[in-house]
Structures are given as C-alpha cells and as structure tokens.
C-alpha cells in the first residue's frame, strides 16, 4: 500500500490524524501541566505554613535566640525536607537578620534581601557545607545586639508573604511569619517541587505518546477499512485493458455511500468505453473485411492482364509494381483485421495439436536464405518433435514476424540465432539477433502499435509486426516477451503450453 513513489493516502491520513490528536493532547497536556504546577505551588505554600506553625507553636513572643535555636533543633532535626529557617529581630532602628542555612550565594542573598525592609542589617554567617542538607541546624545564633528586649516594631514585610528566592544552584520558596518582635522565614527548596513536577510531566508525556500511538493505529486501521473498496477498484482496473473491458467492480453491501457512487460511476464509464471500443473495433474489422474483396478483384484483374500475350515488357513491369502495392494493401488490411479482432476479443482461434518443429522448417529455410542474402550468420537450434497446442496459422504469423524482424534489424555482418526446446514451463522458442545498444525507454516501447525505433525507419514494415505478434501470442494463451538486455544482442522468447500427447 505504502510503496515508494507517490505518498500513500492511508499513511497521510494516519499521520494527519496523529497530528491532530497530538495537538489536542499537547494542548490538554499544557493546560494540565500549568494547572498542576499552580496547584503544587499552592500546596507548597501550605506546607511552608505548616512547618512555620509547628515552629511558631514552640515559640513565645519574648523568646530570644537560644530558645529559637532550640525550637528549630527540636522541630527540624528529624525533618527529611530541606528546610531553611532564619529569623529577623525587630530591633529598634534597623531590623537585623542573620542569613544562614542554605547556600546563600550572592544571587540568593540579593534576592532574599530584596524582600526585607530597607535598611535591614544583614549578617552573613559562614556556611557549613556539611550542614547545608540540614539547614535548620545551620542557624547561627546571635546578632550583635544582645540585651533586653526592645520595644518591637511592626515588621514591614512586603506582600506577598510568600516569595521565591532564585539562586544559581537552586530555588527556594520562603514564607515570612511575623509577630511584633521578630519575623521567622521558613524556606523550602523548590528542587523537590520540580522533581515532582518532572514526574508528573513524565506521566503526561508517556500517556500522551500512548494516546498518540493508539490514535495512529486506530486511524491506520480505520483508513484501511475505509479504502478497502479502493483496493478492489485498483485490482479490477489493473486487469482491464483495451481488449478486456468486460470486468466490473463488484459493489459490496458494506460499501460507504461515497465509494458506492464512485464505483457506480467507474462501472458506467467502463461500460461506455467498452461499447465505443467494441464499436470501433467492429468498424475496423468490418472495414478491413470489406476491403478484401475489391482488393482481390483488382489483384485478379491485374493478374489477368499480366498473363495476356500481347503485353510489352515495360507495361508488364508497371503492372507488377501495382500488384506489389495491392499485395501490400492486402497485407495491411489483413493486419488491421487481426488486430481489431484481437482488440475486440473476437479473434477466431482454432486450437490444434501440431508438431511445431515441423511447422517451423519452412520458416527456418527462409530465415537461412534471408540471412545469407543479408550477410548474416544464421544459427538454427530447433529441437525436433516439439508438439504444442495452439492456432497453427496465428502462431506461424507470430514466429514469422519475429524472424522477419530479426533479419531486418540485425546489425550488418551480425548473426541471428533461433532455438526451440522443451523447458519447465512448456515449449520455448527463442530468437536473438545482433543489435546496437537499445536504450531502456525504447525497449519498453518495442511492442507498441506503430512504434519503430528511430534507427529502424527503413524497410517495408509499418510498425505492426511486434504488436501483432504479441497480440496473437496472447490470444493463443502463450507468452511473448523481450529477453533481458544482453550486450550486443536483442532477443525475444515465446513460451507455449506443451501438448501432453507425444
């Protein structure tokens, strides 16, 4: 179905279905992806809130750094999550914050600080690499201003309370929770979120691919079913030829309306073609038949004149020339009759069993004489006693045309080789002659009606010899074919059913 060359309708249909399905799946996937991300971000904030509340519940407004560190230790030491906790004391004057915990690279710090009230004092503690996986422990207590609590000021945490800090290595999501004395920042690594998102994405991708595959297979199957009537049409149309227009495409009960219409239209067209073809074939047959009698009368009259005693030599020769032309006309008429009968499938075939080797004897005599005259070497390998079953007269014409062609178109000083033998598929007649290299496109056209290669436009033939030969061979149920290209030789083979009786 999807052979090379022109693209296959079925393949295209399947691909297009997959494309449409792919766009739909991708659209839905993108929407779901965005929704899931959004949902996950919300969940994330909720989790940060939970962590923060756990910490909050351990703290009192008056707690200082020791209590804070203890609480953090208590809550987060067992936590599997990567949590960053830090606190900002609302001291009088500028609030101060100690950044510790996750790897506070410059980018992270700058981003984080951007969320703090202006003028906040930021102290960066040394990062203990070992503790980065447990950032809760990484809190270093203390900022400069130890001493009695001061009157707290309200923190100026910018909305939103949740913000994302983007570092070079990883992203953190922070929540800021305030009371009058301090603000606690709780951060969770976004990497975990992204890992989850990747998982979801994989699910979507897998599911989407599977859905696409199913859509493609479904389209392949459905299109295959849908175009099954086309296969039927192709197989019938392939069998049709000028001589065989009687086949019709069968209409099945399950055919779709559109295909049924198409099949009906094609069948009608074929019927019209068949009618007009039959008419023209019959016309040609009738016309050539009608020509036979007047030609015969002209010929016999000329023959009579030629025989009369009183004729001088010059007149005799002129009548001889006319007779020759009448004979050509008869020959052409006869050929046209044969062809039109073959085309109309009305060639009268009188099958008989006969000794082909014997029948070819006269023709081989001729071939030898003709070859001799033309300066060609003639090689005759006719096996004796090969019997076949066919129309003797028609097959004789086939062999005659092949022999005549071989002698006529052989290269000067070349050779003609004829053989007849019994092969596996029946009697096989082969004839070869030396020939100039024949291009492939010419080889393919050799059997066409009225076709003659440019180089062979001489002699008496009128481009029907090979065409008649192939039509007659076909009508006799035998196969005439061009032998595979050989350097310097061209050859034809006729394969015939052998008569079983010896």
């Amino acid at each position, binding site marked *: 179905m999807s052979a090379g060359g022109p693209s296959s309708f079925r393949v295209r249909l399947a691909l297009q279905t997959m494309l449409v399905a792919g766009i739909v799946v991708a659209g839905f996937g993108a929407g779901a992806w965005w929704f899931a991300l959004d949902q996950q971000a919300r969940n994330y904030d909720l989790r940060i809130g939970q962590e923060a509340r756990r910490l909050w519940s351990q703290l009192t407004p008056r707690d200082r750094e020791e209590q804070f560190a203890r609480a953090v230790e208590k809550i987060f030491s067992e936590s599997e999550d990567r949590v960053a906790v830090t606190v900002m004391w609302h001291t009088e004057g500028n609030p101060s914050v100690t950044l510790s915990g996750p790897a506070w690279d410059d980018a992270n710090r700058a981003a984080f600080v951007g969320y703090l009230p202006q003028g906040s004092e930021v102290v960066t503690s040394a990062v203990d690499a070992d503790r980065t996986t447990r950032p809760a422990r990484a809190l270093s207590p203390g900022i400069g201003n130890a001493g009695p609590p001061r009157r707290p000021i309200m923190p100026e945490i910018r909305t939103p309370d949740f913000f994302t800090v983007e570092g070079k290595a990883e992203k953190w999501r922070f929540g800021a929770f305030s009371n009058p004395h301090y603000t606690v920042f709780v951060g969770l690594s976004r990497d975990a979120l992204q890992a989850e998102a990747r998982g979801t994405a994989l699910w979507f991708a897998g599911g989407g691919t599977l859905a696409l595959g199913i859509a493609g297979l479904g389209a392949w199957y459905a299109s295959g079913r849908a175009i099954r009537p086309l296969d039927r049409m192709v197989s019938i149309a392939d069998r049709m030829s000028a001589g065989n227009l009687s086949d019709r495409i069968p209409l099945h009960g399950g055919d779709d309306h559109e295909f049924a219409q198409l099949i009906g239209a094609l069948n009608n067209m074929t019927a019209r073609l068949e009618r007009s073809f039959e008419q023209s074939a019959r016309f040609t047959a009738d016309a050539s038949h009608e020509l036979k*009698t007047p030609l015969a009368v002209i010929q*016999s009259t000329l023959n*009579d004149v030629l025989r009369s005693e009183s*004729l001088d030599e010059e007149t005799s020769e002129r009548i001889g020339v006319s007779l020759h032309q009448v*004979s050509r006309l008869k020959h052409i008429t006869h050929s046209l009759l044969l062809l039109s009968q073959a085309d109309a499938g009305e060639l009268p075939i009188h099958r008989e069993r006969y000794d082909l080797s014997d029948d070819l004897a006269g023709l081989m005599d001729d071939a030898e004489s003709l070859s001799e005259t033309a300066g060609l070497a003639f090689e005759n390998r006719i096996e004796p006693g090969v019997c076949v079953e066919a129309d003797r007269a028609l097959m004789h014409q086939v062999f005659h045309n092949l022999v*005549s062609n071989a002698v*006529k178109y052989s290269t000067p000083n070349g050779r003609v080789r004829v053989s007849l033998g019994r092969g596996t598929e029946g009697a096989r007649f082969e004839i070869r002659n030396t020939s100039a290299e024949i291009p492939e496109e010419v080889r393919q056209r050799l059997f066409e009606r009225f076709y003659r290669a440019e180089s062979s436009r001489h002699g008496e033939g009128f481009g029907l010899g090979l065409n008649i030969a192939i039509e007659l061979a076909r009508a006799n149920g035998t196969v005439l074919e061009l032998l595979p290209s050989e350097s310097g030789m061209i050859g034809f083979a006729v394969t015939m059913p052998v008569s079983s009786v010896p």
Partner: protein
Amino acid sequence: MRILLLEDQESLRQSTRKGLEEMGFAVDAVEDGDVALERALAVPFDALVLDIMVPGRDGLSILRVLRDKKNATPVILLTARSTLPEKIEGLNLGADDYLTKPFYIEELVARLRTVARRHSGAPTHLLEVADLRMDLITRKASRGGAEIELSAREFQLLEFLMRTPGRVFSRVQIYEQVWGYGMDLESNLVEVYVQRLRAKIDKEHETKLLRTIRGAGYALGEAG
C-alpha cells in the same frame, strides 16, 4: 469439367467464371439459390461451387437438399468469413471443401481438381508434370525416377507450381500462396527459391520445366 457457380456478387461471379473458363472449365454461373438448386438437380455437374450467403436458398441448405436426395456431386463452399462453426457445419453436411473469400482463381481450380479426382477415385496425393513426380504423403519428389532432395519450403513451392501446371504466377502471388500473409515483400525469397529449385529439378535435364516469363512471373511446364 462442367461446373455450377453460385455467387450473388456480380463482379466476383464474372471474374470467377472468366477465370475458370480460361482454365478449361465449362461454367454455369447463377446468382440465386433457388435457381441453383433447380439446375443442380437437373444437370449432372462435375462439381458445384456454392456461396453460402446468397438471395433465395442459401448454399448450406442447397447442400443439405442435394445430400438428402443422395446426390453426391462434389461441392466447394464459398464464404466471406471463416468461422469454425460454419465450416464444421458445411463439412458435416457433406461439403468436399471450403474456401474463404477472397481467393485466387488458381486456388479454386486446384481444389476443384482435387475434389473431382477424389470423386472419381483417382489418387489425390500424387502430382505429376511431365516426368516430374511428387508424393504428398511420403513427401518425396523425383524426376525421371531420380529422387530429388528438397527443403521444406522448396517442397511447398514445387507443390504449389505442380498443382496448376503451365499457369504463370506472379512473384507476389507466389509469396501470398506459398508463404502466406505477411511475407516481407522487399526480400527476394521467391527468386532465391526458384533458382534453387531450378538447380535441383532442371540442371541435369534437357527439357527445362521451371520457366521464367519476363515481367510476369514463373510457370512449371508448358502452357495449357
């Protein structure tokens, strides 16, 4: 030999009659089937040449009536189209031979002679011109008792010439009748074979049988 010719086509009837008369036959030519039957029953002809498609009674039905009446006169049927069923029907009804139009007059003459000889009980497979003999069954030819080796085509050519001795045949006619349709007319096959045949049958003999008639063609034996 007296022949009844039934043919409705004027030109063909006239040319056939003329041709047959030239070759020494007495010809009664008619164009209507009923007249033909009447005549055939009244006159003892040596042979009948009947066209199948004619006005009145057609050729096949004349043949049927004759054979029903135990009239065994040899009959050659003429038809425009050679279809096998028609041919078989004709032969089943007792026709002696069958000829498809158009035909050469010599072909008709050769067949008339064959059916007449068969009718009279003479052997039909032996041909003889002067001291030249040919046996169509053993496929052997001899002159003056000495056997002549002939190739397939030479045999066919000699047989053709011996069937109507003395008759002049043009090159074209020999082509058409010995080689059949479709021979390459530009070739000189006829000349080549006539030369070969002449070498085989005439070379060692005083009397030359195979004659060339300049401008007209070839003939075997003396005219007449």
